[in-house]
């Protein structure tokens, strides 16, 4: 066996150019697939992390009150029970955020633009202000109660400058018309996708516009120290809150509907008195992102298979040529006593080594490309910000994906070489020795 391995390696060495070209084709396929796998691996993590910053939490609690006329009002009034329960648990909690938001029309100088406006207590959300890329103005201007931070796109569309005052027409939490006034404190780089839909203001003023009472707000966010324990922490909190407050069931009747949709449905269909709480997580909201990753993974596997079908044809043809070139050589080694299986193994070892060489080279080149791409700072104002980590592309390769790619490459390479190897093994030694090159 070792002798066969040595001969196979020597044969590959004899035809360096051909071996490298074959391995290069395999390496290219592996590189592409590894890059896709690596990107999709970090995709969920980055999107979740960016969303957790935008939404100020990993676990969220909303209060819903049903009126006698069947309308649902969303607010949290007395959060003492919630806070006490959260603090009594051993959750990996970093901090709690309290936010209110509304969608309204910003009006300035005859121009109107619909905008989602988030109110936060900035004295307690320092981390968020540090993530904002301020292009003009200053975060210090937020000390003005009616200050607002807008993205550059929104400020440009309304032709707003720092210090300009604009009107906002919106509805209170009960749906009444209200009119407020904001002063532009800072302009931030558009953080892309969801970020472009949000402007940031002071919680107290947003609550005032929503006609909420002192101490009331709309959403509580729990910011955990890590993304991993979100679901476990949510389950623990849910169980701890059961019996203390009214809760929407974190369950859905069918697999198609996620918790959040199911809770919305409960809100429409069921009756209750007082405040009832919805508890949901970032994972519940972003379950569709995971679906997208699954699609990416499937697509990468399909790409791998298509690439390797093409490469297999090349390997089969090359090994057929190799066999024809070595007919006399095969006759000689057969005459020297090497069995059919030995010749078969010889060819298959050659294919295996080409495959392994290609796989290693592909993995290494993907690693180099990933490292280079990771070094590039795409900035906070890129449209793909939501997919990046602090402006950098990140890649995460799961071991099972690498092993699976290796197995696929090995199996397909051996399969491609199988037919020429069998033909070589079945050559009659006497006939083979008579063949003229």
């Amino acid at each position, binding site marked *: 066996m070792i002798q066969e391995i040595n001969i196979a390696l020597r044969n590959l060495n004899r035809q360096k150019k051909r071996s490298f070209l074959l391995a290069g084709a395999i390496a290219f396929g592996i590189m592409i697939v590894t890059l896709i796998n690596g990107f999709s691996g970090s995709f969920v993590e980055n999107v979740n992390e960016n969303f957790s910053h935008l939404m100020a939490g990993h676990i969220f609690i909303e209060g819903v009150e049903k009126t006698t006329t069947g309308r649902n009002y969303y607010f949290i009034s007395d959060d003492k029970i919630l806070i006490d329960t959260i603090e009594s648990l051993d959750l990996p909690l970093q901090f709690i955020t309290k936010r209110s938001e509304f969608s309204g029309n910003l009006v300035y100088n005859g121009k109107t633009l619909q905008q989602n406006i988030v109110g936060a207590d900035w004295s307690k959300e320092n981390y968020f202000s540090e993530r904002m890329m301020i292009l003009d103005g200053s975060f210090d201007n937020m000390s003005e109660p009616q200050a607002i931070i807008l993205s550059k796109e929104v400020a440009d569309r309304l032709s707003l400058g720092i210090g300009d005052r604009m009107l906002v027409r919106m509805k209170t939490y009960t749906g009444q018309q209200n009119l*407020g006034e904001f002063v532009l404190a800072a302009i931030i780089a558009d953080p892309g996708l969801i970020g472009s839909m949000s402007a940031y203001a002071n919680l107290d003023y947003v609550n005032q516009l929503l006609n909420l009472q002192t101490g009331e707000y709309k959403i509580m966010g729990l910011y955990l120290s890590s993304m991993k324990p979100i679901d476990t922490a949510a389950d623990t909190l849910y169980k701890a809150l059961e019996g203390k407050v009214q809760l929407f069931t974190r369950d859905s009747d069918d697999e198609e509907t996620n918790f959040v949709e199911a809770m919305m449905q409960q809100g429409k269909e069921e009756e209750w008195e007082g405040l009832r709480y919805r508890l949901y997580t970032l994972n519940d909201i972003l379950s569709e992102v995971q679906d997208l990753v699954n699609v990416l993974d499937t697509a990468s596997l399909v790409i791998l298979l298509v690439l390797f079908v093409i490469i297999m044809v090349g390997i089969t043809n090359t090994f057929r040529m190799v066999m024809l070139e070595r007919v006399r050589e095969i006759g000689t080694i057969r005459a020297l006593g090497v069995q059919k299986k030995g010749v078969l193994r010889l060819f298959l070892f050659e294919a295996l080594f080409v495959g392994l060489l290609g796989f290693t080279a592909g993995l290494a080149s993907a690693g180099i490309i990933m490292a280079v791409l990771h070094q590039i700072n795409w900035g906070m104002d890129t449209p793909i910000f939501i997919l990046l980590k602090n402006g950098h592309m990140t890649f995460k390769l799961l071991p099972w994906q690498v092993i699976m790619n290796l197995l696929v490459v090995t199996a397909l390479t051996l399969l491609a070489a199988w037919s020429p190897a069998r033909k070589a093994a079945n050559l009659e030694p006497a006939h083979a020795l008579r063949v003229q090159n």
Partner: protein
Amino acid sequence: MRKIATVLILLMVMSVALTAAEPDFQEMLRKIDDMGNFADSDFYAEYTLTSQKPGEPVAVTKAQMFRRDRNEQFVFIILEPQEDSGKGYLKVDDNVWIYDPQSRAFNHSSLKEEIQNTDTKNSDLTSSSLAEDYTVTRSAEGTLGAFPVWILELTARNNEVSYAKIIIWVHKASSLILKEEDYSVSNRLLRTVAYSSYMKVGDKFLPGVITQVDNVAIGERTIVQMANPSVAVIPNDRFTKSFLERASN
């Protein structure tokens, strides 16, 4: 002493006389509501909403309204523009639905929603409930053009109506509203509405032309014109989701 007593008596008599001269404004609101509501019949009309916004072409929306006020039901279905044809609003029980013929889906809406991004709300064209929703907190006499009017400030009784405060100019002789100002919760003027003509429909009076001026987005206004009103009986199936679905085909 006798002089003081005389003055006091005079003041008392004057205040009684003044009180007697002031009508019961809550009753006036009920009368206004009754003027525009059809408790004993159905109501049908065609509406044209002409919306003007600075820098944008004039947008015209034509629609049909079917109302059955005794059951608090209505159907408002858009005929024009072509791209929105078939879109409609339906009120059944306490629910207001909006139907989108493109997606063939019904979604929850409300009486407070604007129609077709105009200054007109669903509630502007449905039955009136001023007496139920508002209390008269201030009143004054005045004139609007040549018309003697009562100027009434109404404050919302609950926080579910669109406007926290409205001021109406009510024609003294007919109790018809001639002008209305709508205010935000923060007490800022949002919209001014002029009722420039009324049409007699059965034994009721409804505004024939309403001009709604946006006081926030300066230059924006919507003119609502009513045509072909009728109090004939409307088939029951009009007030159903299936009617909106059929009508959009």
